[in-house]
């Protein structure tokens, strides 16, 4: 079970700034451990963000994205009380969705 994301969604005017912190190793597959063995690649490949259930952004990520990834984007035409959900899927099939209410 992965650790939850931290999603903060703040409305200002009719724009909603969403900041997400995801808990993930983002292992490149280039690193070797103390024993000299390659640590297998394990990273988020796909991110989806929805606003009140409608997809507003999708992204494909590679292993160059930093560990415990941060993402910030701005939704046009949102307001306090709206729901923002973020889903990630990693290269091992791991998946996680978290939701936040716009404040």
């Amino acid at each position: 079970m992965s650790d939850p994301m931290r999603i903060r969604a703040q409305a200002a005017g009719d724009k909603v700034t969403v900041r997400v912190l995801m808990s993930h190793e983002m292992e490149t597959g280039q690193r070797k451990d103390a024993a000299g063995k390659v640590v297998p690649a394990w990273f988020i490949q796909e991110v989806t963000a929805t606003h009140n259930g409608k997809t507003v952004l999708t992204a494909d990520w590679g292993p160059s994205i930093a560990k415990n990834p941060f993402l910030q984007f701005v939704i046009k035409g949102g307001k306090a009380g709206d729901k923002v959900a973020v889903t990630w899927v990693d290269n091992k099939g791991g998946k996680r969705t978290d939701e936040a209410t716009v404040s």
Partner: protein
Amino acid sequence: MQTRREMLTRSATVAGLLASAGFLPLTALAAWPQAAFDAKTMADAAKALGGSAPVESKDVSVSGPDIAENGAVVPVGCATTLPGVKRLLLLVEKNPSVLAAVFNVTDAVEPNLNTRVKMGQSSNVFAVAMMNDGKVFFAAKEIKVTLGGCGG
């Protein structure tokens, strides 16, 4: 029996081949764009995603610090003021994995994304805007790294 991963990898490869052969519109690429993430240059990455040769433009911007104290976490952003953008890409020229992210923007979000990348060494960082009409524009910024951030 095929595992789900095998099935996805196969369909991604096929989709990639079809796209580069011009048989599929960009929107049909649902799986992870392997070819783009394998690309070693910005031009190859854009080509793998069905775009034309990238042209530098003042209407695309890449943001980030001039110097990163640690390459493990470098905050970068990609944005454009051009209308009709389909995708925004972030690339780190000298990383083993050059393409860091592909953002498929919809009309519901501003074409302005911020994230954090790992940088193995001082390098140019590119923001690329792929337009609906197939044109590709980019901006570059050099970010110096004082300590490699890839497990060093």
